[in-house]
């Protein structure tokens, strides 16, 4: 994946940072509701998956 490709005035690397932030928010909100009420396991899983995916993509260097 070429993370340096510019999409909507910014590099893909930047957009993955934004996506990671969204993933982090879903993860925290999902864990809050799951721990307190046992609900929203889907949101928790989606947030965790998105976070892990983004972190792994962001780790790819531009060689």
């Amino acid at each position, binding site marked *: 994946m070429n993370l*340096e490709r510019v999409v909507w005035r910014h*590099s893909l690397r930047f957009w993955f940072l934004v996506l990671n*932030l969204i993933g*982090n928010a879903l993860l925290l909100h999902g*864990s809050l509701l799951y*721990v307190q009420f046992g609900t929203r396991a889907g949101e928790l899983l989606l947030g965790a998956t998105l976070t892990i995916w*983004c972190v792994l993509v*962001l*780790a790819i*260097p531009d060689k």
Partner: protein
Amino acid sequence: MTETADSAQRREAADLIRRYPLAESLSPEELAKELASVEQLQDAALPQKFLGYLRLTGPGFMGSGLTIGAGTMTSAMLMGTNFGFRTLWIVWLSIGLGMFMIAAAARFTCRGGFRVIPAQNRHHGLLVGSLLTGLVGVALVAIVFNFAQYSLACHLIESLAALSGVRLPRQINWILVVPLTSWLTLLYGSRSKRGVARVELFMKVCVLLMFVGFGFTLIIVGISWEEFFKGLVVPWLPRGLEGITIFIAYSTAAIGVMDWVMFHYTSHSRAWGPKQETLARFDMAFGFFLPFVAINLLIIAVFAGTLHKLQLRPESAPELASALAPALGAYWSQVFFYLGLLAAPITTMVGMSIAGAIAIHEAFGWTPDTASWRWKFAALLPQIGFLGVWYPRPLWLIILIGAFLSLTQNFAAWSFYLLLNDRAALGEDRCRSFGWNLGLALNITLVNCVAILYLMSQLHMWPE
């Protein structure tokens, strides 16, 4: 060395010095000598290499001296008092993750040769560079958080004097702290007196004092090695949301924007270039990471072995220190303990004041001239923290700056990460390592979580 090689090295040294005005206290001859010894050390035997590099360290100790202050001390004391040895693993993990960002800061200095805040301004805009990184992340934090340093330092001096039967209340003893910290702050980068080296030496001595002070205390109170090693390697957190909050709060409290910026600019003040990048990493490991981890582990272990076992739960640093002191028995052990504690806020005051002055100048595009009134004013602004002796918590300011910092630190982290991966900024010296980027991405994820948690708690979604 031949004459040609010698003059080439002097030219290189002069070029490195010209990169940043605070390096002008170095002479090209002196720096050329350092460059030559760094080159020689590359092929030296390991013990010789280690000692040689250790002699040349500095910015790392400036960083650990700055970071280990009232906040870190209080966190470590509370961790030990509340959870015993069980959260020791967070210490090395959090500072370890922070080191990826420090390595980026070192890369910008050594190989990029640029100054990070103006570079952020060029690549990511004034909002991210001057405002979020320079003014909010460093300068305002330096001013506001100095109140807590003063409060702790003056409490400790009062207790230390009381041990010798002298009454020196904090409402008076702050008069001793102001000249000492102001002098050290203004000494840094001053042209005539090798100021950078002297302040770095002061930081090294204080870090050593903290290590000896807490090490001595730990010998007196004793330690359960089994619990210690278990806490170091087996991750444990309280169940539920408390565990998540504690993990995120503690793992990001250790290292922040100010530390990244400080390491970057103090390396510039030493005129470090491409040949010193290995030295910068050595300094990062042995001047910053190890002292920070060792001192925090010692503090946690001391409090885990005493107040935690006694089920005592004081909440502020002075209360924690006063609760522990009687358990240390003899006069000298208490003196060592208080001196170790006192070194922390003093070094932080000096470090924060220098970082604040650097950041203010970079944010406004001013040339840092340590002889100017503007530099002196910027460097001494945090001294207003002496009011902390009477008002230990300017609560509205702490809330305001804490909010800004929580919500914006991640954008500064994004900017550092993007710069490190930017061909336009670093060319062939950009990050080529998956592991390094992975560490940065994890660090960014943690600081993102701080911002999100802050927002959620403001919206009363996250329990207190």
